[in-house]
């Protein structure tokens, strides 16, 4: 039982709480309601994209094209708006286009059996390139205020941002699917051993295909939200976001080799990453220097569990040897 508590995801949740407490005590303005609103808005794209990414990494695959899908839908949103479509048409259209981008990934990976890493590096370049073709280096900014205002606004003008509802609803849906349904269990089975899962009757290829479609659709939705938040459709929106997402997911205790991890851990990972960046920014650390922290956390989140397990392995072996002697 004691081992159960010492898992990586519980440790990361505890660490997140600790960081939040220390930061609000030490860093000026960190604990204010204004800063809370900003933090939730910064959290929004990472946390939403991290939900399907968790599923994908649990099955042992990866999707590096998410940020480019976001950029593509943001670009198209501007283009559609310039061509007179109503915002009510544009938003669902952008989500569908994101899903189509996911269909291409899913087809290449499960239909043709290509490695997901290489495919999504390719589509990372492809989708970002298409975003540039659509909008060039221009920007579209005149989106209606009732939409941009909703994304940046708070419930009743208080401290709780409207988008927090979206985060909570989606996180609940994804959490229930992963941890309380046969589909969720099958994802772990696929990640632990795809061949065994196949022989156990799980439709491995079809499941993975739909994960990429969902990942694309969510990236499309985030493209819309990103555009509305900054009231600016640009081809380079969200560039590099895939790193933050993958870092947060791995930091949250999901194994890059698949088969392990939990959604609460991932949520804690996202909060930890965002809170650290927010606190450092309040302390006037430059945005580019923050990348050192993100990059180091990404490497450490895989390195530390490896080191711990190898140390534990050595220790157990020594104990066995001693008891044998």
């Amino acid at each position, binding site marked *: 039982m004691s081992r159960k508590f010492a898992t990586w995801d519980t440790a990361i949740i505890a660490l997140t709480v600790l960081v939040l407490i220390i930061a609000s005590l030490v860093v000026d303005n960190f604990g204010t309601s204004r800063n809370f609103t900003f933090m939730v808005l910064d959290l929004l794209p990472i946390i939403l994209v991290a939900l399907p990414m968790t599923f994908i990494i649990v099955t042992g695959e*990866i999707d590096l094209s998410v940020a480019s899908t976001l950029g593509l839908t943001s670009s198209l949103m501007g283009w559609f708006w310039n061509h007179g479509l109503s915002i009510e048409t544009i938003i669902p259209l952008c989500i569908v286009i994101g899903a189509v981008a996911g269909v291409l990934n899913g087809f*290449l990976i499960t239909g*043709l*059996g*290509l*490695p997901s*890493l*290489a*495919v999504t*590096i*390719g*589509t*990372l*370049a*492809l*989708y*970002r*390139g*298409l975003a*540039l*073709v659509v909008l*060039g280096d221009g920007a579209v900014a005149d989106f209606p205020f009732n939409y941009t205002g909703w994304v940046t606004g708070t419930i009743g003008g208080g401290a709780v941002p409207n988008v927090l509802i979206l985060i909570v609803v989606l996180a609940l849906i994804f959490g229930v699917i992963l941890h309380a349904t046969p589909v969720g269990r099958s994802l772990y089975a696929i990640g632990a051993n795809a061949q065994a899962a196949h022989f156990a009757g799980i439709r491995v290829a079809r499941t993975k295909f739909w994960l990429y479609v969902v990942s694309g659709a969510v990236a499309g939705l985030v493209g819309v939200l990103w555009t509305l938040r900054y009231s600016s459709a640009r*081809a380079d929106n969200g560039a590099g976001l895939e*790193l933050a997402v*993958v*870092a947060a997911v*791995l930091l949250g205790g999901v194994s*890059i*080799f698949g088969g392990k991890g939990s959604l609460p851990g991932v949520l804690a990972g996202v909060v930890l990453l965002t809170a650290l960046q927010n606190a450092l920014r309040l302390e006037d650390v*430059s945005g*580019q*220097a*923050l*990348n*050192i*922290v*993100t*990059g*180091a956390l*990404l*490497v450490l989140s*895989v*390195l530390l569990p*490896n*080191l711990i397990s*190898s140390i534990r392995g050595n220790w157990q072996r020594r104990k066995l040897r001693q008891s044998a002697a």
Partner: protein
Amino acid sequence: MTPAAARPPIKFDILKTRELGIVLALAALVLYTTINNPRFLSGQSVRDNLLNTAILAVMATGQAVVVITRNIDLSVGSVLGISAFAVATVMSDHPGLPMIIAILVGLAVGAAAGLLNGVLVRYGKVPALVVTLGTLYMYRGITYSWAGGSQVNADELPAHFLNFANDNLLGVPWLVLIALLVVGATTWVMRNYRVGRELYAMGSSPPAAELAGIKVARNLLGAFVLSGALAGLAGVLFAARFGTVDASAGTGYELNVVAAVVVGGVAVFGGSGTVWGAGLGALLLTVISSALAVLDINQFWQQAIVGALIVLAIGADRLVAVRIARSLRKRDAHV
């Protein structure tokens, strides 16, 4: 030891190499573009294309070796950045230093960065994707913190350093000579020397390579150090060619480098492909981007084409692999 003579020569049939496809694509592209605009084959245009290829080809060489071992190095663009900034800073502080020192500084900075990648992959047991994605941002962040918004301008750099990019030896620019030397030497070592074949073996089957007694740790560290060092060398060439260096030098280059390697026929599953193929891939990508300009096509298409080429190349690789597997099975059935 005589590397080539003592054992049966490795089969080299030009018609069966995967590089032939790239050569044909390249020829078709050059032909089409030249028909539309004859100046595409003028001396200046060819020279520009070769100079632009040189930096990419040097980086693609290191990447090809890493990919052949079934790993990947996404940090090369950031290593180029940190090396270019380091070299530019050293040369502007000490204008009297000869060019060879600049090159050595770049190689050393890159090799150190590559060594850290290799150690984390081998001894930390962290997948190369995660390590190099992390160090991509770490090395870039370090460069930004170091530069602190400043940049090194061309007028702060000594003349002999800047002239290096334009100087020739018998009409061939130094940059191109260095690229040819790097691609040629690495191709030769990978093809004919023990360590080269060991690297291929590691990529074909990592556990089998370990069981066969190959010094996997040493070779893997070597591959990452080579990739880092060559990205560092590319940083020196970048600084000499463009003169103005800020902390963003080389941002996003990793995509072009991976594209060059994959388009050049190095399989992402490791174990196959050649370094000179990767060099050809670099040339093809560069020619595509200059052809877009000559043909008056929107420059923004370039990145989309790079992406589409990566996807097409790995798709084609897969097709070839499936066909080879089928023909091998058929041959076995006859025996």
